[in-house]
């Protein structure tokens, strides 16, 4: 059975409206919150490790740097996906 790139078959011969992809504004709701949460997760993880290992403030600083790095990576990841689509 022949399949066109969109996955429809010969049986669906009648013209169809163009399929819409997921609207991008969902990502806009997500991105801002994820930036903040990434920093909080990194910082929180560092604080927990420091209180557990009594090494304050080494892991707090490392966690903060990793959290900020994760936030920047999130922007790149979302932009990369948007460009690919």
């Amino acid at each position, binding site marked *: *059975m022949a*399949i066109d*790139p*969109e*996955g*429809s*078959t010969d*049986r*669906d011969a009648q013209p*169809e409206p*163009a*399929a*819409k*992809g*997921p*609207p991008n504004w*969902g*990502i806009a*709701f*997500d991105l801002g*919150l*994820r930036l903040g*949460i*990434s920093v909080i*997760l*990194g910082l929180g*993880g560092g604080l927990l490790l420091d209180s557990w290992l009594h090494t304050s403030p080494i892991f707090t600083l490392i966690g903060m740097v*990793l*959290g900020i*790095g*994760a936030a920047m*990576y*999130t922007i790149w*990841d979302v932009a990369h*996906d948007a460009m*690919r*689509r």
Partner: protein
Amino acid sequence: MARSTLESARGGIGWPLVLAAAAVGAVAVYILTPKEEGESLIHVAISAEPLFDIFGFVVTNSMVGASLASLILLAGAWYVTRRSTLVPGRLQSMLELPVEYLASIASGSTSRWRSYVGLVIGLFLMILVANWLGLLPGVGTIGIVHHEGGHETLTPFVRPASADLNFTLGLAIITFVTFVAWAIRLHGPIGYLKELVGEPRIMAPLMFPIHLISELSRLVSLSMRLFGNIFAGEVLLATMLALTTAAVFVLPLAFFVPAVFLGLELIFGAVQALVFALLTMTYITMAIAEHDGGHTEEAEEHDERAPGRPDHSTSASAPA
């Protein structure tokens, strides 16, 4: 200048408005000022409150809300499938509308959309009904009154499920597990770990925690956004109701003020349900697209068993 303003106000609706504003302000100060330490007429608990327990299993009011939402959805599904016709009536069209809309969006995402469209639509409908349930009269206002230390506190029988972090976190975990499972299914467990480690391998000690935090932030943001929006809406409605109920003796028009906020919450509830469903679909789409670029020959062959887009005339059966 002051006199002319006074005269113009006297001629129009200025005086009643000034009086009403003063009355609302006085009532607001009275309501919001704690009578004793920690006491206020507005009481919205941040966590769900336990109602009873069955053999040690505590049932909270948000669990009652979630069960009611499930029952409403089951009843709707039963009605639609029992009386569905090829040419839908008004009610059938209304019930099919969200299913058709989300199915048409999902069909444009990847060629494997049939595998996850059911989850996306299910999440949307569940969150939508759970959010709108909180706007019904009696929800959050009818319950058991406790007398503790001279204070009266109300434990509502029903609380909107989305205003409980446990519910939203549970839904977010389902989404998280699904898109990680898709990534593992397409890459394999080792391939997924390699994705997390990144390239070049020498950067692994830096990139692995960064990737891990970025993945976990999706889980936290999904759950916190829904909880934050719906809980904030509950607090807003409770505040506006408390203010205007007291002010209604001065200005009967105040009764209509909460209606504006109820309308806004109606929109916010639908938007938040749609955002959650769309983000779920976006995350799964990203997991699939990273593997095969969205529409590859391999993916199309994989879906040959169930090809095609939803038939919009009989879309009740679309989400396979």
